[in-house]
């Protein structure tokens, strides 16, 4: 009779030691960005780097606190957020719909596809003066420039998603007696969902790039305006607050989209 094979306590410890080390590394990794801030603080305080260009993080935090207490920062955040949100929706909805339509219909794709291919490479910032000329310096021009940027990202990502639908899924709908609209709604849209979310995340990132540039040039409010105005008055701490705020806005937008993705695309691997 053979005894069942068992591991000795030493062997078990050896097996576990690896994962313990991994856990330690992960714990340190949370704090490594703070290390950079600490280094910056020390260098700035000791004068190793020019304090005029790189004020210490503690002094930037102080400025941020003042701006928060006076509620000034919230006006800028709200102005930027509103422009991004409106422009984003205005661009994303037609982008997704046209991506689905051109993806499913080869004739429409052949006829209209080249128009989008020709317009896509135009840098969105380059046409900002033109858009300001047409839509004025108010919010309408911001909506439009963001919508254009978002539109192309959504259009191409959705189109790519639809073109990748396995033929067999379309056959399933057809064999089940599905209409054209049902195929569109129940096969094309869900199949393209993972790509649509990739597009939404990319578009969110580029929306903040575009809005920052647009607010530099033609706005009296917004985080981009705040960065630019601070630079012109050499209020470097305020400028850094603006940079941190707009980065955080982008970061939280992506987090929100990822949460939505987990909810609406539970079948995709994350």
């Amino acid at each position, binding site marked *: 009779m053979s005894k069942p094979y068992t591991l000795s306590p030493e062997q078990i410890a050896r097996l576990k030691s690896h994962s313990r080390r991994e856990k330690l590394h992960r714990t340190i990794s949370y704090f490594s960005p703070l290390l950079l801030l600490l280094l910056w603080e020390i260098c700035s305080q000791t004068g190793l780097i020019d304090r005029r260009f790189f004020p210490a993080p503690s002094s930037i935090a102080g400025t941020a606190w003042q701006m928060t207490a006076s509620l000034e920062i919230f006006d800028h955040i709200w102005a930027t957020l509103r422009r991004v949100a409106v422009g984003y929706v205005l661009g994303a909805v037609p982008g997704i719909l046209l991506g689905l339509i051109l993806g499913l219909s080869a004739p429409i794709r052949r006829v209209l596809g080249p128009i989008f291919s020709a317009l896509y490479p135009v840098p969105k910032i380059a046409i900002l003066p033109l858009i300001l000329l047409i839509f004025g310096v108010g919010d309408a021009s911001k909506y439009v420039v963001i919508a254009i940027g978002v539109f192309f990202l959504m259009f191409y990502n959705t189109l790519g998603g639809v073109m990748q639908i396995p033929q067999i899924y379309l*056959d399933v709908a057809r064999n089940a007696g599905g209409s054209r609209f049902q195929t569109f709604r*129940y096969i094309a849209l869900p199949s393209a969902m993972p790509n649509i979310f990739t597009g939404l995340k990319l578009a969110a990132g580029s929306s903040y790039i575009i809005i920052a540039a647009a607010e530099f040039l033609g706005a009296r409010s917004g985080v981009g305006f705040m960065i630019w105005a601070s630079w012109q008055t050499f209020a470097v701490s305020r400028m850094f607050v603006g940079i941190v705020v707009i980065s955080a806005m982008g970061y939280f937008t992506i987090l929100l989209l990822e949460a939505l993705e987990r909810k609406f695309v539970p079948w995709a691997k994350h």
Partner: protein
Amino acid sequence: MIVHSDEISRDVSVPAEAAPAIEVRDLVKAFYDVSGDRITLAAANVNFTVKRGEFVCIVGPSGCGKTTVLRILAGLEQPFSGEFRLHTSAQPAMVFQEASVLPWLTVAQNVAFPLKLKGVAAKEQRARVAELLELTGLTDFADARPHQLSGGMKQRVSVARALVDDRDILLMDEPFGALDEQTRLVLQQELLRIWERTGKTVVFITHSVDEALTLADRVLVMSPRPGTIVADLPVPFERPRDVVEMRRDKRFWDLTYEVWRLLAVSPEH
């Protein structure tokens, strides 16, 4: 051309004089490849008849056009010439070759898919889906997502989905081709059990001689491309069949030899 007729008989025994469910006459399918300027003849002069309630397997080498014939019957492709008649009130249901289970739906939603497209009431859908999940042994997996399922489970879902709206004709395109031998045998046995209970007309495509003899009332042997039917062999085993016990029967191996001989001497083109 498709002829619909409403009289539906359910005879598991399939008497010799049973009415035809599928008639295929001189069917030809050709493809034109623009980039290579080449014409491919996929199927040439295919002729066969399937009686109501009969289980027919089509065997042939890969690329012989057997899938094309099935897709034409399913209404997914148009024939180039020739004609076929389906004596049925609804388009045939298809069980596809590879995993055709929709990954964004749960098992129950996948099975319900044809009912949903037809606008069947939710309550009725639930009752019918529960019935099919029970029949295919998927009840415990109703809320699972396809990526959590094994290949065999996925094909069970495909079979359940094809049966859910109760169409008379079932077309199966190598549904068990990608499965391991053991799983395949289990699913073959279950398919036979389901077929015996529902009395559907089944056309089953396979490249496995073994599988064809296990399942079919009749085996149609196809030649390599351009495919045509070169033999029509009745399979004499009594029903209900036991897929394991069948393998002790000498006739099984005699027929296996016969079909292999036909496949081996099929003229090359």
